[in-house]
């Protein structure tokens, strides 16, 4: 019975896993430094400079979009931030710490989540396993080596509770036991977002989440993003200008690997350089 008193203090942490209370708290604690900052970031492939002295600063809670013509270096910038590519020069700071030399997986554990295009889930595993893998990744320090080698996954009650909470949140609880490959198009998208959410990120990078979607599907996806990732800072690459103008707090325009302009949607829409380089084609 003595356990009861100690248990009564715990529920603060694990009362309702559907409420990701932790990220908000940390966010509010340290608002002094920007969440993500790149300093003089350069990436060269041989003679070609794909990212040219990019200084990017993203504040907590911001919804930032990166736009630019094809070949402007958007995806390269993402690859540098997530660690998929090593930088040629410059530095990347996340939450005030230098992460330039960290591996991609270490950055994920720091709180940088990356969403991929639709097919990028574990197709041969069940929906539940997909989400649980992400949860397990973040929670791995909570278990001993022996446990993680030999204890069957379905006996990790706490992890499984968190998994189910995410499944509920993305609305896939009813298909949790199905293979991810068997999911319908929209549900796969949900799963993809759920997997990112399950890694408990502070910053989520989306590379064209609505590529190839109909207007209706795009709308559904964006609604889902906004509903599920309200607490996260979002960095988005997107081709659909209307969508970007509507959603973003701020927009960064890349051209030839350099930042051409940065500002609120209204400022960007009014910027003459941007219109010349990028939006020009749309005003015909």
């Amino acid at each position, binding site marked *: 019975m003595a356990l009861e008193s100690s248990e009564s203090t715990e529920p603060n942490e694990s009362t309702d896993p559907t409420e990701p209370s932790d990220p908000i708290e940390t966010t509010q604690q340290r608002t002094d430094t920007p969440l993500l900052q790149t300093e003089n970031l350069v990436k060269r492939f041989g003679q070609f400079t794909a990212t040219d002295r990019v200084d990017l600063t993203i504040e907590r809670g911001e919804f930032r979009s990166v736009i630019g013509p094809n070949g402007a270096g958007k995806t390269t910038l993402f690859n540098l931030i997530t660690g998929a590519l090593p930088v040629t020069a410059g530095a990347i700071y996340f939450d005030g710490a230098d992460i330039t030399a960290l591996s*991609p997986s270490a950055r994920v554990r720091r709180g940088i*989540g990356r969403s991929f295009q639709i097919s990028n889930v574990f*197709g041969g595993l069940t929906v*539940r*396993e997909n989400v649980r893998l992400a949860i397990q990744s973040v929670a791995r320090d909570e278990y001993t080596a022996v446990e993680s080698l*030999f204890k*069957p*996954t379905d*006996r990790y009650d706490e992890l499984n509770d968190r998994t189910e909470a995410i499944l509920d949140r993305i609305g896939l609880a009813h298909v949790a036991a199905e293979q991810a490959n068997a999911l319908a198009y929209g549900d796969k998208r949900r799963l993809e977002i759920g997997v*990112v959410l399950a890694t408990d990120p502070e910053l989520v990078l989306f590379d064209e989440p609505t590529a190839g979607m109909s207007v209706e599907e795009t709308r559904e996806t964006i609604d889902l993003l906004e509903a599920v990732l309200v607490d996260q800072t979002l960095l988005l690459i997107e081709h659909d200008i209307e969508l970007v103008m509507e959603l973003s707090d701020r927009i960064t325009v890349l051209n030839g690997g350099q930042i051409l302009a940065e500002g609120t949607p209204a400022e960007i829409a009014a910027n003459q350089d941007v219109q010349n380089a990028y939006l020009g084609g749309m005003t015909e």
Partner: protein
Amino acid sequence: MASELLQLLVDGLTIGVVYVLLAAGLSVIFGVMNVINFAHGELFALGAYFALALIAPFGGSAFFVALFVAPLLVGIIGVGIERFTVRPLYGRNPLYHILLTFGLVLVINDLIYLIWEPGSVTLPLPAVLSGSITVLDVTASVYNLFIIVFGALMAVAVWAMFEFTKYGLIVRAGAQDRQMVRNLGIDIDRYYSLVFGMGAALAAFAGIILGGYQTVNPTMGMSVIIPAFVIVVLGGLGSFRGAVVGGLFVGLVQTALRTYAPIFEGTGIFVLMIGVLLVRPHGLFGTDAGEEHAGNLLSGPRGGFLDPQTRTRLGLAMVGLLALVPLGAGTLYSTYAVTLVIEIIIWGLFALSLDFVMGYTGLVSLGHALFYGLGAYAVALGLSHVSQSAFVVLALAIVISAVIAWGIGFLSIRVSGVYFAMITLGFAELFYNLLGQLEFTGGSDGLFGLSTYYGLAGVGVELDEIAVFLGPVAITGQSLFYYIALAALVASFLLTRRMLNSPFGAVLKSIRENEQRATFIGYETTVYKRRAFVVSGALAGLAGGLFTLNAGYATPSLVDWLNSGEVIVMVILGGMGTLYGPVIGSGIFFGLEELLTGFTDRWRLVLGTIFVLFVILLPGGLVSLPSRLAPALLGAPGRGPNPEPEPESNPDPEPATDVDDAHTRGDD
């Protein structure tokens, strides 16, 4: 001194040119079609044998005719091989080509034995090419110079063809983007047949000129294929330039080592390859372009159409059945049955160990015999120097194999795909050659005459000294060992299955499904792969250790690359990514071998053919057969929603329907 060096240069270049011709075809076939052609060595041998057959009726003067007709014939065979066996596999993981061509090695090699006599034959040379020239104290045979000049001309011709002809342009374009070339209205498949045929013809050229230099014998293909791969990997897979530089370089290095440091003749090139790959993971001239994962590994069925409980019962029944085998030995059937099933069990364990790393992380270890051999030698050396206790030496085998696996994993898991396969092959060949040379491992004879007891600290028994009586049947000696081996297999199976159901195993499966995604949800995938490799190496070491305990000897032949190939065959034959499939594969392999050797000496031919058909028609392995047949037989999809068999300890399978509270149910 100078003349000695010149002599070395001539000899080295002679071999080097042969390697260039051999490696060029191999490399181009990979570069264009992503096919690793293990049968290249056999096509090389076939060229020499065809030339032999063409020259025989006419004498040495027919050599020049044969030099062009034989490669043409081999080229046609190459076209046929591409058309009928390789083509159905395009789009699948390159692993399947390794397996297919490994099957072809068995087939072609046995055909050579079937048609021609075993043993070495001299290829008659024309009078023009005999004799020697002496310039500046250097004596070079005319034939040597002929090889160097002719080979160089051939290499230039091939290079020019790729560089300057329309054919070459289309092939190079196809290597970049096959679909794009198709969209231009070009029938790219036809060109692939030609590339394969040309590669085969080049190999045949090499075979003929080397046959004239040395002798023609059925094992000549086996003896060049590994160096040829080393060259291709060294130069960079798919790089013609790399094949030329690598071929000449290896030819010179080998010749120099033979002269100045014979101890390193066997090992030198493998050290070189491993060294190069560690510094430049894609070889000297390679790019990582060829390394896209072209297709998925087709693992065995997940779930299948039997529910977990039936599977568990079936498994228990199988083990029970196996446990009965020694009881009838000597009465119902000969005691040889026990020997055979022990072999199946040990190789089943070996195959299971490979499956753990290959089937679950997609790492294809082409040198897994290394760990088998390590286990065997650890036991052999342990028995002679450390302890006579079987348990102590088996533990030693497991630990040593695990440690070496960690080291090799640390060095090689950073290179991926085909390069990983090659670097593991390199380590295995290195070990193989070391074993043949080191004194304390008994050289090429190995270690033998070993005895052991079962117990600890000197207290224990020898299996021959005791007998367990079950009614009228006395179980002793080998039959007792049989149970030890069976117990090791069952324990290993349960252990690995348990691991696969743990968070660790979940990560392994996620790596198999999508390694990039696994990285981006926060897993350091190389670390997980390395751990899996360590587990795998340890179990392979256990298998090898059991072998030596039972057989009482260890020889370098345990590490032969054919063993590494055969164990992959077993894994695929049974069904990759299932753990039990490979054990079944081992049973089928040895069962077939046993059956076939009763009918014919050429059992490898039949086995190879069966295997080729398998890879083409049933890539999921034997265990995929029921779920493949189920739709046809039952009119319903056979694939269940459960991806893995549930552990016995948890008889409640995850509900297939949407029972939401599944997770809230307390398990224990």
